[in-house]
């Protein structure tokens, strides 16, 4: 008869008392989630691995303080996001210069209205893009769009639209005003939506 596998609570206790194998077994089921959360913010494989390593060390260090009020995966994920934000702060941000990203998708006429409205393609992301979600190409398209964003813009977009953080919370973490967060978020949304539109509508006029 094989021994039943230890529960998460047992693994937590053993890991907190220094059992590194128990720590591995505890973290392993959530490793892809943790890695993905960090990678979405940092976008770079090497930085992501380093930040994940730091996050796992922090998780291990703080295990005695984990009170079980949330799921272990949620608690650990939060530590991972914080580690990604720390890593982001410390790296040289060569891509973070202010660029003149568009704030709207044209083309517009002299009065700022859409040109030839009746022929403008109707972008229905909710209908068209959901059909493509299963496809790897949508992931690749979004990843490319995120990679094009300046560093702070990417972070704001990920925290707001992927992690559901409040604007004020993002502002506090990134030391920006809420207005600056909204502006970066908007530029990011316009760029990402432009890339998705081009991808979904293809060469349609």
């Amino acid at each position, binding site marked *: 008869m094989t021994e039943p596998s230890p529960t998460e609570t047992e693994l937590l206790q053993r890991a907190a008392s*220094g059992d*590194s*194998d128990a*720590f*591995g077994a505890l*973290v*392993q089921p959530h*490793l*892809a*989630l943790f*890695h*993905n*959360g960090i990678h*979405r913010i940092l976008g770079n*494989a090497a930085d*992501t*691995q*380093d930040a*994940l*390593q730091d996050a*796992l*060390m922090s998780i*291990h260090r703080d295990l005695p303080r984990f009170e079980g009020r949330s799921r272990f995966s949620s608690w650990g994920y939060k530590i991972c996001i914080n580690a990604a934000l720390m890593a982001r702060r410390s790296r040289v941000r060569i891509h973070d210069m202010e660029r003149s990203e568009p*704030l*709207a*998708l*044209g083309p*517009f006429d002299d*009065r*700022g*209205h*859409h040109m030839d*409205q009746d022929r403008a393609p*109707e*972008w*229905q*992301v*909710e209908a068209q*893009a*959901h059909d493509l*979600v299963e496809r790897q190409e*949508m*992931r690749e398209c*979004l*990843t490319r769009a995120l990679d094009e964003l300046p560093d702070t813009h990417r972070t704001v977009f990920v925290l707001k*639209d*992927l992690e*559901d953080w409040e604007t004020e919370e993002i502002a506090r973490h990134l030391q920006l005003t*809420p*207005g600056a967060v*909204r*502006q970066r*978020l*908007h530029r990011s*949304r*316009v760029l*990402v*939506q432009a890339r*998705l*539109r081009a991808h979904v509508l293809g060469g349609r006029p």
Partner: protein
Amino acid sequence: MSFLPSCHEVQTDLTEYTEGALPFSRRAGIWVHLLFCRVCAGFLRGMKALPGVAKASLAAPTDVPEAASRALDAVQAALKKGKP
């Protein structure tokens, strides 16, 4: 700036609009514009749908990336080494 903003002005302000960060007169102007402009209304729908599409597309893969396993190996090795 007139009461009814242009498409460019509407699109520029849509994030502030959805977050309720605009003064009432501006918000009302955008609301009216969106009633009549299908392109801007479509842009707003796309903006609202974007988080769902992005979350689904960029969800964690089922397989653990190699880099993640390497990070865990390194941490476990450091923990073992640190043992008295």
